[in-house]
């Protein structure tokens, strides 16, 4: 398959993004199915490790998936074991590494064209995090992308801070600590300027921040329009705080109502992200929704789809992953709810990994 094929796939993807951004449906089942199977066919020819895996599962040049639901899903951990790219990875415009402990190899996700990543990222962020205003001030408790260029979370927040920020974005997660004092000064300044903020961070980083703010007796009333983007969860780490407790503490410390706290769910291995559905942000159970180019199957241990409402493992099919692997099998558990999913967390005993490791590693190093 020629580069023209890649361009055609990218154009189709960007058209879906553009359609959705303009308020259209983006893609229906048939369009998604066509794009997903085309992406798989392309990847099977260009991505040798994926092709070998697919062949082991019975999908080769003679047998193609009949629908997108049949596309072989690579386990997320396989990004540690092979270079899953449809191109020479040295030409990657973006390279993201999974977080991991020092004893653990990082998985690597190579993205051939940053434009695809950026388009998917911005469209989703605008729709779910920023539907009501053009910009915010970003106070980030995520890795600084200049210092951690391979952090997908850092890249994500860096990118939206540049394009949707007020030019005063700042990072408070250094190599060795959550800098709560600097954060407090920055939020205090935003309050004084009545400038609404977006505080983005991992759940574990928020706990470290809240511990420090509460110990100092510091509380804020963030300007109206402020919001929190929480991501990463705890993923089996040593200190786990219930989400309800975390949100209550965030509301109390930052003065940002719980319905303005939005959980984002993404993976280094995916280009696209899920967010809490706006309608569920005041509900006891939050439902996550994705842009139309990211669809998720809920499967059992054997990889078979489970009925709607039944718990299982999340298998993502992301059309944005044109240059890597279109279908990724996770160990995250959840269930379908309407047009979205309810995320239940990581399967017990699965090796702990995820964005929150960044912050916990820091916390551990401070101990």
């Amino acid at each position, binding site marked *: 398959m020629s580069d023209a094929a890649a361009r055609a796939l990218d154009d189709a993807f960007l058209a879906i993004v553009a359609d959705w951004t303009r308020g259209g449906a983006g893609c229906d089942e048939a369009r998604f199915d066509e794009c997903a199977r085309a992406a798989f066919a392309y990847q099977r020819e260009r991505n040798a490790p994926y092709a*070998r*895996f697919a062949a082991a599962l019975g999908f080769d040049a003679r047998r193609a998936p009949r629908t997108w639901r049949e596309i072989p899903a690579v*386990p997320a*951990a396989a990004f540690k*074991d092979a270079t899953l790219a449809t191109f020479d990875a040295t030409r990657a415009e973006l390279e993201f590494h999974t977080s991991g402990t020092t004893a*653990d*190899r990082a998985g690597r996700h190579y993205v051939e064209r940053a434009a695809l990543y950026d388009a998917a990222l911005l469209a989703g962020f605008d729709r779910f995090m920023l539907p009501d205003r053009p910009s915010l001030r970003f106070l980030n408790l995520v890795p600084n992308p200049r210092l951690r260029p391979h952090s997908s979370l850092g890249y994500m927040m860096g990118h939206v801070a540049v394009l949707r920020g007020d030019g005063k974005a700042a990072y408070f997660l250094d190599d060795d600590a959550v800098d709560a004092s600097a954060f407090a000064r920055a939020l205090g300044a935003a309050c004084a300027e009545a400038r609404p903020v977006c505080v983005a961070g991992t759940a574990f980083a928020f706990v470290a921040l809240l511990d420090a703010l509460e110990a100092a007796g510091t509380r804020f009333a963030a300007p109206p329009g402020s919001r929190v983007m929480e991501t990463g969860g705890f993923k089996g780490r040593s200190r786990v705080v219930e989400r309800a407790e975390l949100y209550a503490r965030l509301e109390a410390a930052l003065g940002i109502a719980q319905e303005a706290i939005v959980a984002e769910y993404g993976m280094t291995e995916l280009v696209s992200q899920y967010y809490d559905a706006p309608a569920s942000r005041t509900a006891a159970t939050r439902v996550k929704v994705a842009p139309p180019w990211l669809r998720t199957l809920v499967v059992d*241990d054997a990889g078979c789809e489970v009925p709607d409402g039944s718990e299982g493992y999340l298998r993502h099919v992301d059309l944005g992953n044109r240059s890597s692997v279109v279908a990724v099998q996770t160990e995250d558990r959840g269930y379908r709810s309407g047009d979205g999913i309810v995320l239940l967390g990581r399967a017990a005993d*699965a090796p702990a990994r995820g964005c929150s490791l960044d912050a916990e590693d820091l916390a551990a190093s401070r101990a």
Partner: protein
Amino acid sequence: MSAASAALPARRIVDALADAAERWRDADFPARVRATRGLVARTGYTEPVVDFALDRLFESLTREALAVTIAGELGSVEALDGFVARTGRPDVFYRGVARAAIVSSDTTIGVALPALAFALCAKARVAVKERDDGLVAAFAATLAEERPELGQRIETGTWPAESAELRARLARADTVVAFGRDATLADVRAVLAPNARFVPFGHRTSAGYVTREALADESLVRAAARGAARDALLYDGDGCLSLHALFVERGGALDVAAFARAVAAACDEAAIEFPAGYAELDAATAAYRRRALFRAAQGEGFVHAGAVAPHLLVLDPPRDEPPPLLRRTLALYAVDEPRDAAAFLRAHALPLEAVALAPGAAGTRDDVVRFASESGAARLCELGRLQAPPLAAEHGSAERILPFVRAIYRA
């Protein structure tokens, strides 16, 4: 300690224990039948597995094994009854502690019973926190039928970990033997009297090593493969004696991949003899299998999952990750020499209980025995024997009866 039980000579206690165990060796013994049902319900293991465990347990509790172990550690059984002479050393009397306590493990079957037996031989009163299968209480009842005064010295209960009842018993014990996770052991240790003896058995695992000499012919290969399969699948891979990592030397008549296939076939056979307690791979193992399948598709290693039973065998998983300590899962690592295995174990700081070697002389080359001895393991044995430790040996490097006695010498 009642006067009657204190007056009972240690050899009579050994006799009573052996006689009670003899009755439990009968699979149709009503108390055993009831305990088997309880154990199946608690552990989730299948009946053949529970039967195997009870057979091994009660076959080991013999008069000879008890006496030989006591004599081996104390010089004689009679040293538990009064002063005995020792060559070149002062006379000694190993007086039992007044109270002992035993905290059972949740994944093993009857692990408290050997400790109970030796504590009784030491004439201690013993409190056993057991699991809700009632095995210890049932054996105590049989023992009471043999010697009522022994039954009176045993107290069993399923006291919750944080309960005042358990903490009180632990606090007044002179010796405490406990099995469990590190956190559990730390909790137990925290409530003990300052001068109490504490014998902890934390979570550990076991490994194996197959030399190239053990791959020289078909019968040797079959023996090693069968042994490895049995050691990996018994008790669904739970417990410190389950085999999780098997190092196999390159350069044998049979290559490592072929040996892996032999182990896979042996696992399928062992799964018939010892069926799994569950029908499908658990979530973590299923996820591990998916990744192993991906690696195998890249030509890295080999993966075999049981067709009708949930077990998983993986050849050459990533070396920079610890072996998968998952249920019914065995990882095989191709190595050139024992030094490779030692480096792997060192890199992952694996706490080893035992190292199993291929049966016969072919498996016990000097450098392999040296590696196994230096691995931190408390026991070396043949593959296939991991799950049947002898009573007469130390348990986890700890003596059997010495923790329950205090030496008094006369000079």
